[in-house]
């Protein structure tokens, strides 16, 4: 079975503001059943909008206008439900529908964050148990669910690490980060007040104990690595590296974005990791929402536990309760208001309960299986970045193709013509024209085969018909988008 795309028509659709017409009404709110309060009677005129103010062109459209607008827009989008989405590092696995149903239960959606604990025991229990599951999966001693995304989790972890050294009376100022790291790693480190010390990965794509040893010192708070790393390789020497860092009193922060490859197979605690964030919107199957919301819980070993953000959830007998800063004097405080992205936690909780230990292990194993299948099948046509079996993703370079004047971007765009979302491109930075393919465990062999066949065709086209690639995509609603113009002549909003 070959995956192809067919011609089809998309409905054209203007901006909602261009659909607007004076006096049209949509879903009007419920009329008031209490006496009307005249704003001007209690609020100074200067605090109020001018009468007749039309909010700068705020839309006036009908309910059907709205429905058609967003229905049509949605059809211009490609999601996991549309097709294969091998976006490396993003773990675009199937987002189970049952999790969506669970998250929409009114017993969850209708909870106010400040309602009394007695009235939200189910929610607290769910959070408490989810923390416990993440501890079990990672081997960490404690978990906070507060951060909103992976980067937020990194920041939270780094704040704790800073606080830990400050608390010891010996603040440290540096974080070692390998050159393969995701951009959020150095950015989070800087935001947390650290100086970033870059370190090169070896020719085999791995971090060497020697390289770490060479830069590790007593002003270094932590080494921040990703395992499996962003090349899809397991850091074999992680235990030794951790020993080196620990010897100098430093800590190991692991970017847990790639946890999908190890859950149920290996525990971060055994590797010497002290702090890790989980990306629930990757490993634990919650959808990405076209750019969030995600959730980035952080796991820590015992010595970092006092620094976790507040509130903490405690089980006292059969009751669940929230512990605040008064009882947690070393806490870094808060990463945000309230308790984190609860509805994302519901989905992750549901996922873990559906799979159980065996299911998680099986998912990780299958993710590795699928990635190695792609790696093997494509290595004749695309240059492997590193010639070792991979974990959950396979990284290629554009070396075989660049000679034909064809770039990684061209390959990526051409894949769209074949009906596939492109892989992650140009990341990690250490690989020339990187093509990072993460198939995940939820894809069928038929899909993998169709993707492989498309990639092979594209490799052939690169030689014989490079124009096909350069003009790609050719069957989408818009052709290649001019991103330079967007930055040079910024239009960041509609204006009347």
């Amino acid at each position: 079975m070959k995956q192809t795309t067919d011609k089809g028509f998309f409905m054209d659709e203007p901006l909602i503001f261009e659909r607007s017409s004076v006096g049209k009404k949509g879903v009007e709110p419920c009329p008031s059943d209490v006496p009307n309060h005249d704003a001007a009677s209690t609020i100074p005129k200067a605090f109020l909008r001018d009468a007749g103010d039309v909010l700068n062109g705020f839309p006036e459209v009908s309910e059907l206008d709205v429905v058609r607008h967003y229905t049509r827009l949605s059809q211009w989008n490609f999601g996991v439900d549309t097709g294969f989405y091998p976006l490396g590092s993003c773990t675009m696995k199937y987002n189970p529908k049952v999790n969506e149903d669970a998250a929409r239960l009114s017993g969850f959606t209708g909870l106010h964050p400040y309602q009394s604990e007695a009235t939200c025991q189910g929610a607290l229990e769910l959070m408490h148990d989810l923390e416990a599951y993440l501890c079990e999966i990672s081997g960490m001693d404690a978990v906070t669910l507060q951060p909103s995304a992976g980067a937020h989790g990194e920041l939270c972890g780094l704040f704790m690490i800073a606080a830990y050294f400050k608390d010891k009376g010996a603040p440290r100022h540096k974080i070692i980060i390998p050159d393969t790291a995701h951009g959020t790693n150095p950015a989070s480190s800087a935001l947390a007040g650290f100086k970033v010390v870059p370190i090169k990965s070896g020719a085999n794509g791995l971090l060497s104990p020697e390289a770490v040893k060479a830069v590790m010192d007593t002003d270094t708070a932590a080494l921040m690595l990703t395992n499996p790393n962003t090349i899809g390789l397991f850091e074999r020497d992680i235990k030794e590296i951790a020993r080196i860092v620990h010897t100098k009193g430093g800590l190991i922060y692991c970017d847990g974005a790639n946890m999908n490859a190890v859950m149920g197979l290996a525990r971060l605690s055994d590797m010497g990791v002290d702090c890790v964030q989980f990306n629930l919107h990757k490993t634990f199957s919650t959808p990405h929402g076209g750019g969030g919301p995600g959730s980035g819980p952080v796991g820590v070993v015992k010595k970092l536990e006092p620094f976790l953000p507040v509130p903490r959830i405690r089980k006292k007998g059969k009751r669940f309760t929230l512990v605040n800063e008064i009882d947690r004097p070393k806490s870094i405080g808060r990463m945000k208001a309230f308790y984190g992205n609860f509805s994302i936690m519901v989905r992750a909780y549901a996922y873990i309960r559906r799979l159980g230990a065996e299911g998680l292990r099986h998912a990780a194993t299958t993710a590795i299986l699928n990635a190695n299948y792609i790696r093997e099948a494509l290595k004749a046509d695309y240059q492997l970045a590193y010639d070792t079996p991979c974990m959950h993703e396979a990284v290629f370079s554009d070396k075989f193709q660049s000679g034909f004047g064809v770039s990684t971007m061209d390959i990526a765009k051409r894949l769209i013509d074949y009906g596939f979302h492109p892989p992650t491109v140009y990341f990690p930075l250490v690989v020339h024209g990187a093509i990072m393919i993460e198939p995940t465990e939820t894809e069928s062999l038929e899909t993998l085969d169709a993707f492989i066949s498309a990639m092979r065709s594209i490799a052939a086209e690169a030689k014989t018909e490079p124009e096909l690639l350069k003009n790609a995509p050719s069957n989408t609603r818009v052709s290649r988008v001019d991103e330079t113009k967007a930055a040079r002549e910024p239009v960041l909003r509609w204006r009347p």
Partner: protein
Amino acid sequence: MPYVSLSDKDVERILKTIGLDSTEALLGTLPDDLRIKDKLDLPDGLAEQELMALMQGMAAKNFPVGRGGLLSFLGAGAYNHYIPSTVAHLAGRSEFYTAYTPYQPEISQGTLQAIFEYQTLVCQMTSMDVANASLYDGASATAEAVLMARRVTGRGRVVLSGALHPEYRRTIKTYLNAASEDIAEALFCTEAGTTLVEAAQAAMGDEPACLVIQHPNFFGCLEDVSALAEAVHRKKGLLIVVVTEPVSLGLLKPPGEAGCDIVVGDNQSFGNALNFGGPYLGFMATKTEFVRQMPGRLIGQTVDRNGSRAFCLTFSTREQHIRRERATSNICTNHGLCALQAAIHLTSLGLSGLKALSEVNLSKAHYLRQRLLETKVCHAAFSAPLFNEFTVRLDKDADAVLKRLLKKGILAGLDLSRFYPALTNHLLIAATELNSKDDIDRFAEELSRA
């Protein structure tokens, strides 16, 4: 196994291709001493039917706000509004919610156009030039705004209004802790309930980076934004206005017209359910001149090769994936779907709907306040004008009153002593279009008995 698409036969074929004879062999890349020997200690997996029963059971252990559940007058940064049916139906289209951040614009025009429109809606409501795609929530957005103000001004001192949401203040402190804790607090007037201009002025010192106020503020009081803007502008600092209840923007003069430099806040009120506090929808809008210091994703309009209008992520040189440790923020995944939901809610309301909603909220809160004050059990705590939230002082023990009302199924408000020890027996109370006259009357009656 759930969600895995390979049959046993498929696994065999894959192994054969890779040249291995078992999945065990495949796991050889993992050092043996790091392998988990037995199984994780987790509950056994469940069939979908069992899972759904479990989740319904967990949900049933809660007492949510709404029909058949609790009657709520809680606000304090999380508002219970009616979400039009269009929102879930449209944001629930899987092309939207199963997509990643729109890195490939050619197949992401749906998300891109929708968020471009959302950015515009935020600008329209706030009267600012430019708004970003989203941030996590109001608190972290405020922290980001403070960092941004420091970058823009090159200064350190940050002044927070004491009437800014306490959890927002705590978040800012956490964010600044690592860098510099040059934070001061501007007291609020215990009579009016609003930020004292003189206190703010004093706290600023000579070179403030910014003054952060909330409007309506945490007590529900309307601040004199222009006066505070003038005060901070006189010292060449920036005014950051935090809006946690953006429904007020249908009625109130937009911060952009009152001299604000950065507006941040939470758009949860639009299209996003209470959800026990998250995910909510941090937003940020500012002036064109500051855009390059702004954190977060920005969608821009451009053209494709054929000159047709198209949208894409832009100004990414501000961002972590390009700029790494020199980025304006570390944010990557943001709250895109929440922004989509807000946009659908806002466009469904439309101009007249937004204004009407704002007016209904105003009327409900004033009616509620009047009814409560009539009971004589409580008194107005502050004199400043209000939108849909206000503070009262009880003659009785707040905790006991809250407990007694809860027994009647009423969440009567937030006990402010939780955050302000001085404000004993003060309740922060909100009303929205979801509180009917009957509900309000019942609350007043139960309060008078409590």
